Structure formats: structure tokens, C-alpha cells
């Protein structure tokens, strides 16, 4: 979910490739990524992948292949997991839960009617991430030797902090909220470019790169103003004002300078005066501008890959095809034994 500012971002977003991220550290919004796997990695009728005991394995499959891809391209991932959600987000979470229930019923009906396409569509919208899935995801990431950070609250806020400190080069998430949290560099669609089918037409999903600085510069607003726009448009913490989308929000903020001025100007949208509780505004601004983050976390180290543990988790515990797992791991093993490619940066600086 997150804030909808896709059209405003279009002007400054750039297409990049894995090569641009060579040797770079990327803080990945783990929940966001795993949710995507649960939505995408499904069988033809929309059923999730499962092992012999009926445990869901879509998330593990996604994490396994995606992580190998990162490592093969010499990218250094850091997985950042969400902590306890803010109280304000609970409404959104409850809302989503209700919607998922509805979709689930629709999915069951579609299946009964043998409309598998529709069943799959609804199934994708019902993805739920449970505790066990999170634990197993962490296990797998850990076996790959990749550092994990447990955020105290929002993973995106923590990722943004890592970038501010210089401990990571960029944040990877589908949510533009990362920008509101002050994440200087945002990467979206962080996977090998692939073609996806959207309503019978295919389009390529390229990796997108957005610089917060350039984005704000282009719109000629500050980050605080962006957060105030977020309050108008709607974020995970507040539904926003009906009738105000990204363009209207930008126009209003630019014309009046701040949300406070907007409220004081008695502006009407769709015949109704904009009215937002001041305390809520303050709390949301705090969430984004002064987020709850872990300032101290273990030093980021990428350890050796524990191949045996990965095989045990995937093949023995979850019935993955041993041939496919082994083949994929073989590629990494080969690379690990091989010499490391350095870049020219260090030679440019040496005098």
C-alpha cells in the first residue's frame, strides 16, 4: 500500500540495472518483499505453493531465488523486518483484514464456479503473513549469511536511517512511504527485469531508482511538505481526505505553504471543508519525521553461506526439488570460490 504519488515520481525516476548496484548495500523492506512473493508465487488456480504437510512455501521459494540473484550480481542485501506497528496503523491493518476476508469468500465462489482466472485474482489479494512464515524467512536469509535488522516499528523508517548513516546505499521497497521517512535513495521493482502480463498486454518491469533529493527539488517542496501532502492523500496511518489525490495535494501545499495554512484557509474539496484533527496531524508528522528507529544494531556482516542448512530447510523440511535447489546453489558455490571483481573506484582515488 503506502502513499500514492506515482505520477509525481515519474518525472525523476530512472531505470537502472543490477550492474548499477554492483558491490552496493541495499536495505530491503522484508515484509513488503515477502508479501509480494505471497501474491505472485502461486499455482495456476491461485493456490499458494505448499509442502507435503500443507505448509505454505511461496515465500521461501521467492526468497531463495531472489536472494541468489542478488548475490550472483554482487549486490549486498540487508533484510529489514518490521517491528510493532504504530497504533495509527492498526486501523489500516484491521481494514485490510476485513477486505481480505471478503476477497477470500469471492475466491471460494469463483473456484466453485470453476473460474480459475478470477479465483487466482482474488487469491492474490488474500495474502497473509504469519509468524511462522516470518521466522522461516529469517532463517533462510540468515543461512545465506545476509544481515537482518529487526526494526522497532516501521521497516522503511529503519532502512531510511541505514541510508542516512551510510550503512546502506539505498532502500528497496515498493512503497513510496520510504521517501516520507527520509530514505534518500529508493529502489522499486528490485528484481531481474521481467515481463508481466497486465490485462492481456505485457509490460516490462524495470528496476526504478528515485532520489529523494531530486524528487523534492523537482517539485520544489520540503520533506515536511511531502509528509503533509501524505496526510492529505492518505498513507497507512491515515486515510487522507476524500477527493484529494497527488496533484491536488501538491497544488494545495504549494499554494498555501503548509497544511496548517490550508486548514486555516477553509478550503473546500467536493463541497466539504477540509477538516483534520490537529493531534492526528502532529502524530503522523512525528511518525515520518521523527520515526521510532533502532539507533544501535549489530555491525553489518555478510557471512559465508551455509549450504547444508539451506538444503535441509528447503529440501528436507519443505519438499523442494533437490535438483533445482542444488543447481541454484551450485552457481553460488562456483562464484564464492572464484576471485572477487573489484571496481575502479579505489584506483580513481589513489594518488
Amino acid at each position, binding site marked *: 500500500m503506502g502513499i500514492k504519488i506515482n505520477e509525481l515520481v515519474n518525472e525523476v525516476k530512472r531505470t537502472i540495472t543490477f550492474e548499477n548496484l554492483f558491490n552496493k548495500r541495499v536495505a530491503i523492506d522484508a515484509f513488503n518483499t515477502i508479501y509480494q512473493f505471497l501474491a505472485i508465487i502461486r499455482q495456476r488456480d491461485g493456490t499458494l505453493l505448499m509442502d507435503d504437510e500443507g505448509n505454505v512455501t511461496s515465500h521461501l521459494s521467492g526468497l531463495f531465488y531472489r536472494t541468489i540473484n542478488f548475490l550472483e550480481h554482487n549486490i549486498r542485501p540487508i533484510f529489514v523486518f518490521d517491528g510493532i506497528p504504530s497504533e495509527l496503523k492498526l486501523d489500516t491493518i484491521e481494514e485490510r483484514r476485513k477486505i481480505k476476508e471478503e476477497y477470500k469468500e469471492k475466491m471460494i465462489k469463483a473456484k466453485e464456479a470453476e473460474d480459475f482466472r478470477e479465483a487466482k485474482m482474488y487469491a492474490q489479494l488474500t495474502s497473509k503473513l504469519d509468524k511462522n512464515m516470518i521466522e522461516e524467512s529469517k532463517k533462510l536469509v540468515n543461512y545465506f549469511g545476509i544481515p537482518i535488522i529487526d526494526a522497532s516499528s516501521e521497516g522503511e523508517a529503519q532502512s531510511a536511517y541505514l541510508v542516512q548513516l551510510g550503512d546502506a546505499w539505498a532502500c528497496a521497497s515498493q512503497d513510496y512511504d520510504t521517501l516520507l521517512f527520509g530514505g534518500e535513495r529508493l529502489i522499486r521493482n528490485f528484481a531481474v527485469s521481467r515481463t508481466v502480463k497486465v490485462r492481456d498486454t505485457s509490460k516490462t518491469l524495470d528496476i526504478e531508482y528515485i532520489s529523494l533529493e531530486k524528487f523534492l527539488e523537482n517539485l520544489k517542496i520540503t520533506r515536511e511538505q511531502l509528509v503533509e501532502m501524505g496526510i492529505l492523500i492518505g498513507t497507512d496511518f491515515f486515510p487522507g481526505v476524500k477527493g484529494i489525490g497527488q496533484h491536488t495535494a501538491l497544488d494545495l501545499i504549494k499554494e498555501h505553504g503548509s497544511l496548517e495554512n490550508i486548514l486555516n484557509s477553509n478550503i473546500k474539496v467536493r463541497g466539504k471543508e477540509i477538516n483534520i484533527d490537529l493531534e492526528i496531524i502532529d502524530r503522523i508528522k512525528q511518525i515520518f519525521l521523527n520515526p521510532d528507529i533502532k539507533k544501535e544494531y549489530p555491525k553489518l556482516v555478510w557471512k559465508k553461506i551455509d549450504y547444508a542448512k539451506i538444503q535441509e530447510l528447503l529440501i528436507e523440511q519443505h519438499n523442494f526439488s533437490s535438483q533445482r535447489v542444488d543447481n541454484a546453489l551450485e552457481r553460488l558455490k562456483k562464484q564464492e570460490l572464484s576471485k572477487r571483481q573489484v571496481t575502479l573506484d579505489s*584506483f580513481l582515488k589513489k594518488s
Partner: protein
Amino acid sequence: MSFSLKLEDSRILRGIIETLASFIEESEFKVSPKEFVITAFDDSMVSLLKFSMKKEDFDAYNCSKEFKISLNLDDLDKILKRSATDDTIEVEFQEREQKIKIKMKKRDSKRVRTFSLSLLDTDKQEVSIDNLQKIEYFVNWVMSPPDFTPDLLVEAIKDAEIYSDILNVKADEKNGLVFNSTGQIGEMEYNIELDDLPEKKIEETEMGAYSITFLKKILKLASITEKVEIFLKTDYPLKMIFTLLNGGILNYFLAPRVEKDEFEEEEDMEEFDEF
């Protein structure tokens, strides 16, 4: 303000752009009253290409001040691929139009095909490559016809590729030059003795390991190359200077592959280059 360049043989420009396009998507071209220069890092910053061609090496060259323009290389490559070897190519740029014009004409013919290509915005910071160019090398050799053509290197790489994605190069006073690669199925070695090297300076023992993928890309230039001078230094970039058939020089620097450290490699977090 404007500039215009003319080449009666399209091969050099076509070859350079084809090679560049295999490394990066877009690049900046610097056209000054004296020369035409393209400097580009590949996306991963593993290698650097610097192509320069002097005013005198063009068949016509008009430029009164320095221009910097950025172009999409894939598109430029597509356009240039439409030229025949004996086509005359003219590149024109008018500052008020945000595009270049490329004209192709058969020699002794009046029919002209004109292509235009829009410029891209340049927001890339210029990176100084002085330090790279200042590196002192104690081993270098020249590959030139008739007996020691650059194609020999192409062959060595094809041999090596059977075994690995890394080519090991070693030079010393006793054995001369040794190319080798090892893999699970076996290994290959290609030895060129000192006496067999027509032009060389081998004062030290130097060795390095280099990515075959990158070497293959740059050696596509072999067909339009007159000679290559190669500089080798342990743990330093491999440097290659290509002298192209109709003049024009391409400097290529390729960062080495090094042994892995036990745990984590040293890292410089200042290396935050913008795209």
C-alpha cells in the same frame, strides 16, 4: 553555434559505438575545436573506456568551441548499423536544436539519408580519471601485425573461456607471456616466449586475473584495430591502448579480480556515486 564532423569510412565510428553500447546505455560526447572525446564507465564501474580522435583524423571537422552532448548509445548504434562500410558519414549539431543529425551518403552518389537523434539530459557528474592515468606500469607489450595481431588475444580468450570466466595473465623475464585459465574440467595455457614478442618492456614479474566477459566486449574492436599496447601490473587495472585503423585512440582500463579475503572485504562507503 554548431559543429560538424565527417568521416569517409563509417567503420571506426560504427565499431566504437557498437562496443560502447555493449557496456553502457548512454554516454557523454565531448566535441572540442581540437578533438572528439568519449569517456565512459560501464554501469558497474569495473571498466573505463576513453575514446579520442583528433581533428586531423577526420575528413572534415568544424567546431569552434567545446560541446558536451549525451546520447542514447543503443539508438545511435541502431542508426550507425544502417550505414555501409563505404558510406560517408556526417554528424551535425545545432545548439538550438536539441538533437544531432547523421547523414549517410554513398561515395560518388548524391543520395543522402538523414537520421536525427534527440539529446539526453546530462546530469552525470564528471569523474576525474587522472589517478588512473597516472598509474606507472613496468610491464607492457605491443600486439601488432603482421605476426602478432590483436586477434591472437581474441583466440586466447576463446581458449580460456572453455574453463572459466577469468583469464589469468602473467609476464616475467624468463617465460615471457603466459595466458591461462583453470576450471573444474581442466585448464589451458598459452605461452608466448620473450623472443617472440616484437615490442615489449618486461622489467618485473607481474600478474593479474581479469573478467573474460569484459575482455570479450572490448576485443570486438580487434577488427578495426591497427595495434594494441597492453600494460600489466599485479593488483592493478589492466590497461589497453587501442590504435584504430584510421587514427583514433581508445584507452581501456579493466579492474582486476582478486583473491577473496577470509571474511568481509574492506569497504569504502564514500563510494556513493550518483548515477
